[in-house]
């Protein structure tokens, strides 16, 4: 049990800056997901915390101890790798026991811990097999069990589910959450999959081009993205953005009059999620011409145009709306976000 403090860590590969002064605090027992598109520096950051990558500057503290210059083995952490990295020449049992064996733990304790970790991951029956005899999902379980067996102060996970097929990923995600919630291990989890981050994390750190652009609980990141990038990256389909002119401190959209945000320039971006738009009959709203309706079972996804800009709307599945039809939409006023069209950053509403 320990917290992680990442203080102004930078990393450059030659002239390319992979990390620009990243600071991040993970509280004791907290699960933080590093989320971002490929190349945003999330894996580099994780590897610097692990000690597998050198940093250009900054410090890493685990449990208040400066581990910046320590080799990985002295940092008191465990890690789950994207390609599992299960040792192929060792039986599952010895793989799980590897970390404890290295610390010179008593054989009785090793046995106990292996049994416990194997039970947690439901691989008790596989202990005497070699990794080559296991499926990808089973190998992933071994990799997680190996990490849990050492009862690490800090657990690092690098896209652990990305090599699994979709169904298995869903299953492992739920299981992982249950296991880690029980273990209360401080976890730093790298992923490019926003549903994984949303589902697992206590807080999400969204990264873009070597910076953390937002660090907040999942729902807050979802509802109040700090920038157009975050709003567009998180959520499927992504957040809608409508560029609208500001006149006399108000923004007009159809028959709606919305208060423009503070610090707004001559135009502003209205950010709204597809499910935060609803159909209205006769009330105030704006016109939306449907181009493609997609019935997805849980909802119907409409793609079309409003105010000459493309927009996606999710409506209840029982509504039957055809292509070419024009409907009136009303946004949920509490879920409207404003962004600066030039910088893409969120603006404070009035």
């Amino acid at each position: 049990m320990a917290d992680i403090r990442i203080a102004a860590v930078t990393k450059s590969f030659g002239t390319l800056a992979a990390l620009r002064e990243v600071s991040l605090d993970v509280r004791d027992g907290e699960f933080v997901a590093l989320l971002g598109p490929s190349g945003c520096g999330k894996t580099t950051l994780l590897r610097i915390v692990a000690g597998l990558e050198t940093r250009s500057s900054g410090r890493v503290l685990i449990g208040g101890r400066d581990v910046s210059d320590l080799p990985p083995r002295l940092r008191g952490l465990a890690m789950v790798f994207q390609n599992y990295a299960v040792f192929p020449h060792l039986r599952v049992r010895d793989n799980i026991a590897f970390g404890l064996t290295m610390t010179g733990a008593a054989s009785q304790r090793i046995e106990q811990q292996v049994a416990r970790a194997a039970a947690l991951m439901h691989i008790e029956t596989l202990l005497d097999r070699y990794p080559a005899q296991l499926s990808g999902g089973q190998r992933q379980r071994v990799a997680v069990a190996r990490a849990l067996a050492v009862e690490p102060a800090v657990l690092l996970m690098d896209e652990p589910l990305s090599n699994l097929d979709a169904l298995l990923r869903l299953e492992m995600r739920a299981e992982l959450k249950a296991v880690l919630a029980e273990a209360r291990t401080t976890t730093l989890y790298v992923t490019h999959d926003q549903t994984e981050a949303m589902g697992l994390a206590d807080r999400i750190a969204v990264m873009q081009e070597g910076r953390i652009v937002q660090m907040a609980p999942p729902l807050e990141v979802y509802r109040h993205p700090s920038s157009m990038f975050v709003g567009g990256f998180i959520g499927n389909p992504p957040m809608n953005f409508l560029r609208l002119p500001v006149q006399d401190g108000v923004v007009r959209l159809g028959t709606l009059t919305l208060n423009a945000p503070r610090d707004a320039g001559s135009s502003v971006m209205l950010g709204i999620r597809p499910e935060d738009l609803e159909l209205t009959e006769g009330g105030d709203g704006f016109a939306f011409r449907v181009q493609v309706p997609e019935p997805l079972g849980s909802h119907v996804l409409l793609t079309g145009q409003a105010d000459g800009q493309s927009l996606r709307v999710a409506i209840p599945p029982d509504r039957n709306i055809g292509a070419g039809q024009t409907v009136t939409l009303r946004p949920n006023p509490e879920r409207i976000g404003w962004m600066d069209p030039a910088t893409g950053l969120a603006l404070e509403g009035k």
Partner: protein
Amino acid sequence: MTGLRRALFVAGILLVCAWTLVPIYLVALGGIGGAATVYAWPKPFWPATLSLSNFQAFLEIEGIWPAMLRSIEVAVLCMLFSLLLGAPAGYALARFAFRGATIYRLTILMTRAFPVGILALPLAVGFVRLGIYDTAFGVALMHTALALPFAVLVTASLFLGIPRELEEAAWVFGCSGLGAFRRVVLPLAIPGIAATAIFAFVISWNEVFAASVLTVRHKTLTAYLLTLLSEAPLQSQLAGGLLLILPSVLFIFLVRRYLFAMWGVASR
């Protein structure tokens, strides 16, 4: 069309096989068949008489056993030097990006571009000065120079085949750099390393020119036979030749998979 291509393909393979197998067959025929078969024409497919007397005669030649022991000593030394120098170099090539890695990889084979014939005299003089002329150690050094490029390239491809993450996992779970190598990399690499060792052994075992030039009284088996067999009857020469070929053929057969790996050809 495909039939013709296939026929050409098979014919090519047969030709290549015949290129190596026919001489070996003739050597074996003479060695086993004795004088009657050696001088018979046309050659019978099977030897007229099967006898091991030629081998026996060969093994009873004076000085054969000391020479053979020396050959083994030289080959084992060559094997050890090649591994101790070659494996770390191969590991460095596989794991570290350093300036000039590609050039290094290419020039490593260039050591084979200098004919031993040209180097022989300066080498002999140099060895005399160093006091290692006419010693097993000296010959082993020369053979190591011949075997090292292969040792480096084979071990490099070997270490490349072991994912870096396995090593990183070992570091995270409590291993030092050396510990990770010993506990994770080495066990996975051992079959390939054994193959590399055997290959170095065979190179040394077969080498005759340098061994002849660098020794006078303490000759290796091949060098000794070169001086000796020119006066022996043909069937004894053939019997000796067969005995020399066998270990190499056997070893190469055992390690063929790893030799293919060196050239990037997958064979599973």
